[in-house]
């Protein structure tokens, strides 16, 4: 037992300031995400009039009471189409996350038909594809509650159509991998969307509301002149009795979701998962709630990542690996919700010793089969003659290579700065971590705006001097400001999360919960036997 000796003064002004700043950011996060809830809820009356549940009610009906739900990509689409931070609605017209249905951990996707009738955008597609990739990676049954007007033809983009196929490709891959896919048709699923039920292993459809047709009545009329009745053309009852597209016909939304729960229960999915999670483990000695006051909102102010680890791991108990060597790169072993883990954090830039230590530590985690948690707070690898000569590139490369190739679960958190190649070595987005979440204060990018602007100014001065031209300081200053804005506007957590460069922004106080949840996910995935087949299940 090595219980961390915290030096954090929770009564200090700094703590109070940090906490206030962080909670303001968390409030902002909730306020932005709340826009989607509020916008969708404006259509509540319409849902009720049609005897339907709202998308969020559907989610609640589907999930097991009291069981946790990890929402994913909640900010997707933020600042993408509407670039005004004051009005932009996040979520990309759908809600997705990992939750429990009849005791089975599932990937759930709910079309938010309260927003633009669930019409899909480019970001919707990216969000769905990203969720399906997690489902495949984590061996999670994929449940899709469908009610979508399809893609808005007025905003047609060829790439959305072209990449859209990836969605059905993934359904095929999931089915072939032995991971069941289930669609509940609550409303229309037209055109390309019709392959959602077509390619799902199980389809439940709501009588009188669920619909699927390659061409809806309007397009059909335009294409062939046929005037068709929507129910005859693609109604749930027709599909249940005539086309055979629908397996289970439901009376209404609630009944459909009950049927979906029944299907999941009857799979006995957990019988194929050998693991039983550890039930006995200690909560941290230091409250995870204190994480809000630990981290300065300005990432240039340092803090000890040990204080963070102490508020996340079981019993605040961890062992630091090689603490005197490459000290700014912190490697630690600890247990989290009973699972032994390796943790890599930063107390500054990564130097050659830090890089080699981390690379070695990663190999040890791989050997011990311990998941690795990357706590990103680094401005990057050290630069300068001394470091170049010490082999910074070579050693950094080893660390990036190790981070890429370890065969254990990797969970990355952006908890402060994550800049440049430091992000690569610390298992950023490009390294396909199993899970990747961001704190609201985090900044990510190739470098800080100021450094970029200064670099560009330096280049300009050198060029001007070579050409013998007098530099226009006013123009240069304006350019500097533009560069700072360009970089900084893209580095914020809300902005990057809007572009699906992570899986979501979390309240720092939830860090232990998020890690517990995702570690459970990874453990189940590794212990789960799949029964793959060559072609996926065909509807015959």
């Amino acid at each position: 037992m090595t219980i961390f000796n915290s030096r954090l003064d929770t009564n200090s002004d700094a703590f109070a300031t940090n906490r206030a700043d962080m909670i303001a950011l968390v409030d902002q996060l909730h306020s932005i995400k709340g826009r989607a809830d509020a916008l969708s809820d404006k259509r509540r009356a319409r849902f009720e009039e049609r005897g339907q549940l709202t998308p969020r009610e559907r989610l609640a009906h589907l999930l097991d009471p009291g069981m946790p739900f990890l929402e994913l990509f909640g900010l997707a689409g933020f600042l993408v189409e509407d670039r005004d931070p004051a009005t932009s609605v996040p979520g990309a017209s759908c809600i997705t996350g990992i939750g429990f249905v009849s005791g089975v951990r599932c990937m759930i996707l709910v079309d938010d038909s309260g927003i633009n009738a669930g019409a899909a955008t480019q970001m919707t597609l990216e969000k769905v594809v990203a969720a399906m990739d997690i489902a495949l990676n984590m061996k999670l049954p994929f449940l899709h509650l469908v009610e979508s007007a399809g893609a808005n033809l007025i905003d047609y983009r060829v790439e959305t159509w072209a990449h859209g196929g990836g969605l059905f490709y993934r359904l095929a891959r999931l089915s072939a991998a032995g991971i069941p896919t289930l669609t509940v048709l609550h409303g229309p699923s037209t055109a390309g969307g019709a392959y959602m039920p077509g390619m799902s292993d199980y389809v439940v459809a709501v009588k009188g509301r669920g619909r699927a047709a390659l061409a809806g009545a309007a397009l059909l009329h335009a294409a062939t002149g046929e005037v068709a009745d929507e129910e005859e053309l693609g109604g749930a009852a027709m599909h249940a009795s005539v086309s055979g597209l629908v397996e289970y016909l439901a009376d209404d939304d609630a009944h459909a979701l009950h049927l979906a729960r029944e299907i999941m229960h009857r799979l006995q999915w957990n019988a194929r998962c050998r693991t039983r999670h550890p039930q006995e483990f200690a909560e941290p000695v230091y409250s995870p709630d204190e994480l809000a006051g630990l981290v300065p909102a300005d990432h240039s102010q340092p803090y000890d990542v040990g204080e963070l680890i102490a508020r996340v791991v079981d019993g605040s108990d961890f062992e630091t690996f090689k603490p005197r060597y490459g000290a700014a790169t912190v490697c630690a072993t600890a247990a989290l919700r009973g699972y032994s883990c390796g943790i890599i954090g930063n107390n500054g830039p990564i130097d050659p010793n830090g890089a080699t230590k981390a690379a070695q530590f990663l190999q040890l985690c791989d050997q011990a089969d311990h998941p690795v948690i990357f706590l990103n707070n680094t401005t990057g690898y050290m630069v300068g003659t001394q470091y170049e000569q010490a082999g910074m590139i070579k050693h950094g490369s080893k660390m990036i290579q190790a981070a890429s190739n370890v065969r254990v679960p990797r969970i990355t958190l952006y908890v402060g700065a994550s800049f440049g190649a430091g992000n690569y070595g610390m298992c950023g987005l490009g390294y396909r971590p199993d899970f990747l979440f961001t704190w609201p204060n985090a900044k990510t990018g190739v470098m800080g705006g100021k450094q970029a602007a200064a670099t560009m100014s330096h280049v300009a001065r050198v060029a001007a001097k070579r050409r013998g031209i007098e530099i226009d300081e006013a123009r240069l200053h304006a350019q500097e400001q533009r560069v700072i804005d360009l970089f900084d506007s893209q580095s914020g957590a809300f902005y990057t999360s809007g572009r699906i460069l992570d899986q979501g922004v979390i309240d720092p106080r939830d860090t232990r919960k998020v890690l517990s949840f995702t570690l459970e996910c990874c453990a189940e995935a590794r212990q789960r036997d799949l029964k793959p087949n060559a072609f996926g299940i065909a509807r015959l």
Partner: protein
Amino acid sequence: MISSRMRSVLRDCKRATLITDMTRKFDSVLVANRGEIACRIIRSVRAMGMRSIAVYSEADAGAPHVTLADRSVCIGAGPPSESYLSIARVLESARHSSADAIHPGYGFLAENAAFATACEDADIVFIGPSPHAISAMGNKAEAKRLMRDADVACVPGYDGADQSDAIMAARAAEIGFPIMIKAAAGGGGRGMRLVEQSDEMSGALRIARSEAINAFGSNELILEKAIRGARHVEIQIVADNAGHTVHLGERDCSVQRRHQKLIEEAPCPVLTTDLREQMGAAAVRAARAIGYSGVGTVEFLLDQDGSFYFLEMNTRLQVEHPVTEMVTGLDLVELQIRVARGEALGLKQREIALDGHAIEARLCTEDPSRDFMPATGTITRWHIDESDNVRIDSGIREGQTITPFYDALAAKVIAHGETRDAARRRLVRALRDTTIFGLRSNRAFLIQCLENPHFASGKATTAFVDDLLRETRLDTPSQPLAAIAAALLFRLDFELACARGPGVATNLRNWSSGIPLTSHYSLEIDAVKYSPTVSPLGPDRSLVVVDGNPIEIGIESLDTESAVAYVADLRIRLRFQQSDQHELWLALPDHDCRIVRLHQNRSDSDDAIASGLVRAPMHGVVQEVVVAAGDTVAPGQPLLVLEAMKMQQQILAPVAAIVMEIHTRPGQQVVSGDLLITLGENAAEGGEETR
């Protein structure tokens, strides 16, 4: 079951016993009954060191008396006429099992003189009075004539041989309404009708005659003036073969529903010593008048002015005999057996003292909110605690199926106390701790009766239950109840989900990284629908919104069958049973309810039922149409026969319905999906469902 006090009294009695030459020794007793009374008799038989033999019908194969006895004999099918009421079969079983004696219990053959005679003829001791005494009192009309001769006051009425409607109506008018029609051969409330005014007379006579002939094999009726607000007070007597007769005090059985007793007590709360002596003396006179031996009960109506009228004499053990046992310390079944053996009892009237107070409640599987309609089904949970002052005479067990063949009495709960109120409180406590799930019971209603101030103050008369029903709506679920149910289901659902998976970390419980999740329930609680939502406030607390009203509920100490609920400042003990995923039985101390989760038991086969269209399930040839348009069909009844692939397939009615139209004929080739028959809603069935 037998208290130490009872034992010491019995010892004294035995000491006083004289063995006479009338003694008939026997050492095995066949109990010609079922349910709680069979169990209770078997216990005394065994306690006296004798062999006990039970008889049972096929419907009772799983009943407790079958296993309690040393030996059990199946005597026929479920309907009583084919089993417990069949003299031939009971006697055959007695011979077969070499029984020396038969105890008839109450009901069935207990007051059947022919049976008592048949026992004598078969040289088997009938534990009860002589056939003569039975028939003398068995006919109410004759009994009243006898009693008048013995100087025992009777209720004004008519017990003449002329049974014509006209005479009955004329006599009724003379006596004055309201009037009570009773089966002359009857008892136990069957064949009894209250008639308020003359124009109801002919209808009531018809029903009473039909009930009387069905229940007692005779349609003879008597009329009695209905005395409103009277008490039903009965005197327990015991007589040995030497004609030595004493009374064991009275029982008050005023609390009745549908003319059947519900709560009985001893002593009667308003009886003075003087009145007790008068009534006791009258009862002893009545017994002597017919040369009675054994235990028996003389029933009186006690009017508010203290006058009392002979109602009838029951020549058998009464259902409510335990209250007398608890205040006298005597075992009445043992006394019956000893009298039957020919022993002299040696009980002296002055030595019989009443100690404290005893109250009995009849726990029945019936639905008080639906006019006490008997409930059938399987008892999925049965738990009741016996204690020093609380005696349980139970005739059911967990897992037993309650059939429609017999009466609804499941168990008697009898509490004793130094005072009436002490006994009443103990009885309420015992009933609160009792669990009966799987079918409706009157548990909560009994508590409601016992807690009613009118009953508590000892003022309940025969009008009590009707008055109570007028004042209160029974078993009405409330919003807090719906909230408790929803909060409990939320917890149970969580536990189930946890158990079904590899388990989640405790700190993840109720956690959502996105929008807070609210669970939705759609429940039917005792036929009232609720759609509560549940939002967790902590591991043990939830905010439940019912019809827009937020109610905070705590659920603590949860295990697989009980929990404690907190509603505002109230702490409520819950017992529950989830028989399957869509049904929950929930007992609060003062309320039982069945909760059905909606959305969970539908199937798309309802489609066909709703539309009434019966279609061909496959290609084939219609062989035969079994029904005709206009026919009424029951669920599962064949409609037509379809031959397909050399297989004959019966097409069955999905629901009770009327055949509206037949769209096919024999010999016709049909393809899958062809309309064969249109069914319409059966008006009578429809009415049944909406009632």
